[in-house]
C-alpha cells in the first residue's frame, strides 16, 4: 500500500513543479500580441538566452552542489563555435547547435577534470581562472578569434523556410528554447541520475560508500551544464551578430551565478525567475549600470541571508506561512535539532 502511494505522489508533485513554469512561458509567448517595443523584445531575448544557461547551472549548482564562477566561458565557447563555423564552413544556426553543445561540453570536461580533482571551494576558483584564461586566449587569438574586437556573424536563421531573424520571431524561438531547457532540466532533476547528483550534494562520503563514482558524476554534471551553455551561446551569437571576449569574462559569469542564486537553483522555476528579475530590475527601477550592480549585490546578500533556497522557494514559504501559520516554523526547528547529532558515547 505504501509502495504504491509514494511513486504516485512524487510523480504528481514533480509535474506540479513544471506546469507553472510552462504556463508562465506560454503567457510570455503571448506578449508580442501586445506589440511591445523592440527594446523590450531585445531585453527579453537576452534574458531568455541567459535562462537557458541558468537551467544548466541549476543542474550543476542546485542538484550537485558545485558552483561554477566561469560559466559565461562555456557560453562563450558555444558562441565562438557558432561564429567560427559560420565563417569557415558557412554552417547555419541549426548545425551550429549540436556542434556548439559538443564544444562546450568538451571544454567543460577539460576544465572539470583537473578542477574537480582539487574539489570543494577550489573548484569555484578554478572555473573562475579558466574563464579568465579563455578571455585571454580569445583576445590573443589573432584573426582566427578576431582578437579583442571579436567576430561578426552574418546569415539569417531560418526555420522551415521562415526567416527567424525578425525580432518577434527570434523572441518566440528563444521562448521555445527556454521551455525545452526547463523540461530538460526538470527531466534530469526527476530522474535517478538527478537523485544521484543530489546524493553527492548532500554527502559525498556516503555517496561513495554506496558505489557512486563521485568524481565522474561531478564532471558529468559540469558537462551537462556545458551543453545548456553551448546552446545558449549559439542563440546569443546569432542574436547579437557580433561577439567579443569581454562578453564571456568574469562579470557575465558572476551575473549568471547571481541570477541562479537569486531565483533559486533547486527549483524548476528558479532559473526563469532569476533570469527575468536580473534582466528587468534595472529597467523597472530605471537604474544606471553602476546602480544596478549595487542593487544586484544587495539582492544577492538579502537572498543568501533571508531566503537561502532562492526567491521562488522563499515566496512559497511566505505564502505557506500566511496560509497555515506556525507550521513551517515548527518544521525548521525540527531540522535544526536534527543537524546536531549527539556526540559519540564513549566507554
Amino acid at each position, binding site marked *: 500500500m505504501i509502495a504504491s502511494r509514494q511513486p504516485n505522489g512524487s510523480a504528481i508533485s514533480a509535474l506540479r513543479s513544471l506546469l507553472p513554469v510552462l504556463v508562465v512561458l506560454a503567457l510570455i509567448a503571448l506578449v508580442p500580441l501586445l506589440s511591445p517595443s523592440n527594446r523590450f523584445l531585445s531585453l527579453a531575448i537576452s534574458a531568455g538566452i541567459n535562462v537557458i544557461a541558468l537551467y544548466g547551472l541549476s543542474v550543476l549548482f542546485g542538484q550537485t552542489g558545485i558552483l561554477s564562477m566561469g560559466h559565461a566561458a562555456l557560453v562563450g565557447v558555444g558562441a565562438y563555435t557558432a561564429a567560427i563555423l559560420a565563417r569557415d564552413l558557412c554552417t547555419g544556426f541549426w548545425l551550429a547547435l549540436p556542434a556548439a553543445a559538443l564544444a562546450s561540453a568538451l571544454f567543460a570536461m577539460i576544465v572539470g577534470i583537473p578542477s574537480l580533482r582539487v574539489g570543494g571551494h577550489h573548484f569555484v576558483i578554478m572555473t573562475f581562472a579558466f574563464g579568465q584564461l579563455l578571455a585571454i586566449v580569445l583576445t590573443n587569438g589573432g584573426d582566427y578569434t578576431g582578437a579583442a574586437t571579436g567576430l561578426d556573424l552574418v546569415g539569417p536563421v531560418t526555420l522551415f523556410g521562415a526567416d527567424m531573424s525578425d525580432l518577434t520571431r527570434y523572441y518566440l524561438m528563444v521562448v521555445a528554447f527556454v521551455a525545452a531547457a526547463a523540461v530538460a532540466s526538470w527531466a534530469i532533476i526527476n530522474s*535517478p541520475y538527478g537523485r544521484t547528483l543530489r546524493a553527492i550534494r548532500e554527502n559525498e562520503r556516503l555517496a*561513495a560508500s554506496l558505489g*557512486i*563514482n563521485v568524481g565522474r558524476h561531478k564532471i558529468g554534471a559540469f558537462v551537462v551544464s556545458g551543453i545548456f551553455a553551448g546552446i545558449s551561446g549559439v542563440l546569443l551569437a546569432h542574436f547579437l551578430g557580433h561577439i567579443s571576449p569581454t562578453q564571456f569574462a568574469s562579470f557575465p559569469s558572476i551575473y549568471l551565478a547571481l541570477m541562479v542564486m537569486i531565483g533559486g537553483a533547486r527549483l524548476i522555476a528558479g532559473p526563469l525567475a532569476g533570469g527575468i528579475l536580473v534582466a528587468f530590475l534595472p529597467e523597472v527601477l530605471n537604474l544606471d549600470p553602476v546602480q544596478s550592480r549595487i542593487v544586484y549585490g544587495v539582492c544577492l546578500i538579502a537572498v543568501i541571508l533571508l531566503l537561502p533556497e532562492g526567491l521562488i522557494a522563499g515566496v512559497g514559504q511566505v505564502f505557506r506561512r500566511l496560509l497555515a501559520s506556525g507550521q513551517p516554523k515548527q518544521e525548521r526547528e525540527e531540522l535544526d535539532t*536534527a543537524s546536531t547529532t549527539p556526540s*559519540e558515547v564513549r566507554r
Partner: protein
Amino acid sequence: MSPILEIRGLSKRFGGVTALSGVDLAIEEGEILGVVGPNGSGKTTLFNVVTGVHMPSGGSVSFRGRDITGLKPHAISRAGIGYTFQQAMAFAGLRVLENVQIAGEHVRVNAGASHHPWPTPLALLDFVGLAALADERAGVLPFGSLRLLGLALALASRPALLLLDEPAAGLNDRETAALVGLVRQLPGHGITVCVIDHDMKLMQMLCRRLAVLDFGSKIADGPTGAVLADPKVLDVYLGGDL
C-alpha cells in the same frame, strides 16, 4: 573454505602517528566478527583502509580472493563490501525512501548475494523498522532512526560483507536490542558481518569471535570468551569495564 576478506600485514601511518601496524585478519564467510580496542587503537582506520577511504602505507586486502588494496571507495562498495560510519549519516535533505533508493542504484547484483531479487527499498526500510517514516526528510530523523537508516542504506548497496563501526553508539537500550536482532539475521541472508563496538555485552551477544586492537596492532583473536579472559586483553582494558 577461504576467508571472504583477508587482511595481510596492513599498516597505516598518518604523519608521525602509526594508526595500524602489520595487522593480519581474516573474516570467514557467514560469521559475525567483533573488533574491539581502546579509543584510538585503529579500529576505524582498519575499516577506512579496507573500504578505500585511506590508502594503506603497507600490506594488502583481498576480498573473495581478489586483491582490492587501494581501490576507490565506490569500487570497493561495488565489489560487495558495505559499511556504516561511526558518525551516523544520511542524505539529510532527501526523503528517507529516496535515500534507500539511491543506495540501491549503483551496485550490480553481487555474485555472492543469496537474495534474488534483492529486497526493495521499502522492504529494507520495513526490515529496519523505518517504513512508517519513508516520506520524511532524513534530516529530521531522531538519532536512533538515523543509525538504522544508515544500516538500511548499507544493506541496499547489496553487500556480501558488511562493516559496522559502532552501530549501537548513541542508541538507547530498546534501540540497541532491535539492532542486535537485525544484525543477527544478516548471516542467514548471506551477509557476513564485521562489527566494531565498545559495548562488551553487545559484542558477547553478537560475536562468537573477537579480534582486539591496541596501538594499531592486533593483540588477540579468537573465540569471544577466550579473548575476554586473555590476560593481554585484560591488561589493555585495565581499570576498564570489561
